């Protein structure tokens, strides 16, 4: 989707360890640290406290989980615009179950599983349409984004369904060694995602399919089926994020997850995953998500008007990407 303008020959820098994946991450870390420095300078204690760190992490956790799934999708050469909507649909479906009387005696894990199942199902439908229907991912998932939102509205009657399932809320709101369960969930998904991406055949296939689908097919990889799974995975993470959202806000509503997709994609790409596929990084994604969360936090601490925040945010995104690119490998391309 993006024109890779050929790097001007002059830009070929000396190679070093900086030019590997590590180098790409260094640029990101630098951006993150710069942001933190700004936070400390402008916010002092209020920024640097442990509480605030937890606030940032909690803030990052929901989009973070979505971003892990998105990293697989984008690496496989696709895109998923439906994650926000599907998240919303999952919260509505799960909360409908929880607020229906007949569900009184169901264990809360059933509610959780419903959320995950709804997300996964939506993802698999995306996958079917893209892999077997050969509809371009942007359009297929855009359609799902619109349709899932409508379905969520129909199911909820456009109402906000507040969940008061104690077992569930106790669980999601708990702390564990001083860290909120929501943050742990993000950590678990990120770590699992990292292993899946870097240590399993699934991850390897994802990179291969995104790098060269035709070559992968001729090497005997079932490309279509793999894409199906990748979108299913993204749906699953949307379901998980939905459950987290439900825990965080106690509310199932069709407006949950509204406009998350662009932020998630931005975080993934800022993190260093190539939008054209074939290269992805879970670590980069996590840092990308943290950058966005920290940005919001620093802005609020500084009491910037929303409008000014937006202008600043636009500028910072571009600058962050430019910094990252300075550090990133010139060597991979010419």
């Amino acid at each position, binding site marked *: 989707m993006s024109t890779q303008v050929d790097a001007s020959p002059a830009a070929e820098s000396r190679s070093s360890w900086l030019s590997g994946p590590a180098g790409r991450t260094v640029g990101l870390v630098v951006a993150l640290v710069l942001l933190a420095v700004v936070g400390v300078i402008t916010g002092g204690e209020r920024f640097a406290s442990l*509480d605030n760190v937890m606030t940032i992490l909690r803030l990052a956790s929901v989009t973070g989980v979505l971003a892990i799934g998105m990293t697989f999708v984008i690496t496989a050469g696709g895109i998923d615009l439906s994650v926000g909507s599907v998240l919303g649909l999952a919260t509505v479906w799960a909360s409908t179950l929880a607020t229906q009387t007949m569900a009184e005696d169901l264990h809360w894990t059933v509610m959780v599983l419903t959320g995950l199942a709804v997300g996964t199902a939506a993802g698999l439908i995306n996958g079917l349409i893209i892999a077997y229907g050969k509809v371009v991912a942007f359009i297929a998932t855009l359609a799902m984004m619109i349709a899932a939102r409508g379905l969520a509205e129909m199911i909820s009657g456009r109402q*906000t369904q507040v969940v008061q399932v104690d077992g569930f809320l106790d669980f999601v709101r708990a702390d564990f060694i001083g860290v909120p369960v929501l943050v742990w969930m993000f950590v678990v998904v990120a770590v699992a995602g990292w292993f899946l991406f870097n240590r399993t055949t699934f991850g390897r296939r994802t990179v291969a399919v995104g790098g060269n689908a035709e070559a992968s097919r001729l090497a005997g990889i079932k490309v279509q089926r793999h894409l199906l799974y990748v979108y299913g995975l993204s749906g699953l993470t949307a379901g998980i994020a939905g459950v987290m959202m439900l825990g965080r806000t106690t*509310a199932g509503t069709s407006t949950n997850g509204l406009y998350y997709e662009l932020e998630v994609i931005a975080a993934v790409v800022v993190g260093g995953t190539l939008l054209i596929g074939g290269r992805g990084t879970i670590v980069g994604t996590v840092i990308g998500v943290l950058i966005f969360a920290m940005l919001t936090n620093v802005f609020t601490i500084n009491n910037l008007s929303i409008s000014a925040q937006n202008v600043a945010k636009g500028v910072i995104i571009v600058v962050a990407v430019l910094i990252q690119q300075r550090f990133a490998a010139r060597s991979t391309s010419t």
Partner: protein
Amino acid sequence: AGCTSNEPPEDEGSAAPQVAAEGNDEPGEKVVIGFSAPAADHGWMGAITQSAVDTADQYSDVELRQAEATNDVNVQISQVEQFINDGVDAIVLLPFDGAALTEVATKAMDAGIPVINVDREFSSPFAARATVLGDNYGMGVSAGTYICEQLGDTPDAVVAEVAGIDSLPLTQDRSKGFKDALSDCGLDVDARVAADFTVQGGETATSNLLQAEPKIDAIWNHDDDQGVGVLAAIENAGRDEFFMVGGAGSLDVMEHIKADDSVLQATVIYPSTQAADGIKLARLVVHDKNMGDLVSAGVPRTTQLYAPVVTADNVDQYMSIGFRS
């Protein structure tokens, strides 16, 4: 009946006002009403459409034509154009942006189709036959006055505000009323964040707000639906050193006020039934009838709804009009 009455109706459960046993509700000639509103991207707006549809359903002589809910004024304009082409009998319009829809509403009026303007006001008086408004400035004043009453004697008290969609004029009206009322008792707004009327937006904005302000005395939150998220953030942060005033008046919030199980002490009503009122008025206008208890002829040009403060003392009175956000 409905919100314009002084007495809250008895009926429980449905947010849609009950058809009162008055002459006005007797079936008459068929009325085709075109209805267009912004996308249900937050609970209040969802309740708006829902109660409009429910109310229309209660009349056998009303045929409601719902246009796709949209935040695109371009689309909304074309919907009104379509209603004009169709020659509907009346149009109930909650414009995404009042100014932007004024022109086409005027065109409808010129074509002899009465337009009932709801919630967000047109920029010209000629664009609507009747207007149903909440009292946004009044909401801010009510909330500010209540907070003044509670905190009046502590001039250095920290007051925070969680606003709705900042770019809407009505948000600015609310904030202005709030500020004006506070300054009357020597207080000001120490921290202000804006969310977007959604639960998630409220949660995010409030988490950050709480982080930025280690000690707070009072919070006013503009909208009870985003309030679900505001409350969740407060509970997540384990904070309770302040009290909170809500806005709009959802059932959920009223239940909290009644149970006294949270920082919520009060909320300010902003009726989610105003589009339902619009439907009723449209029908009356077409049937050329008077409004309920009024003696004067014809449906009034403007109906501004009341923004009372709901507290533990009077919550029972208002439970029935609280919207299930």
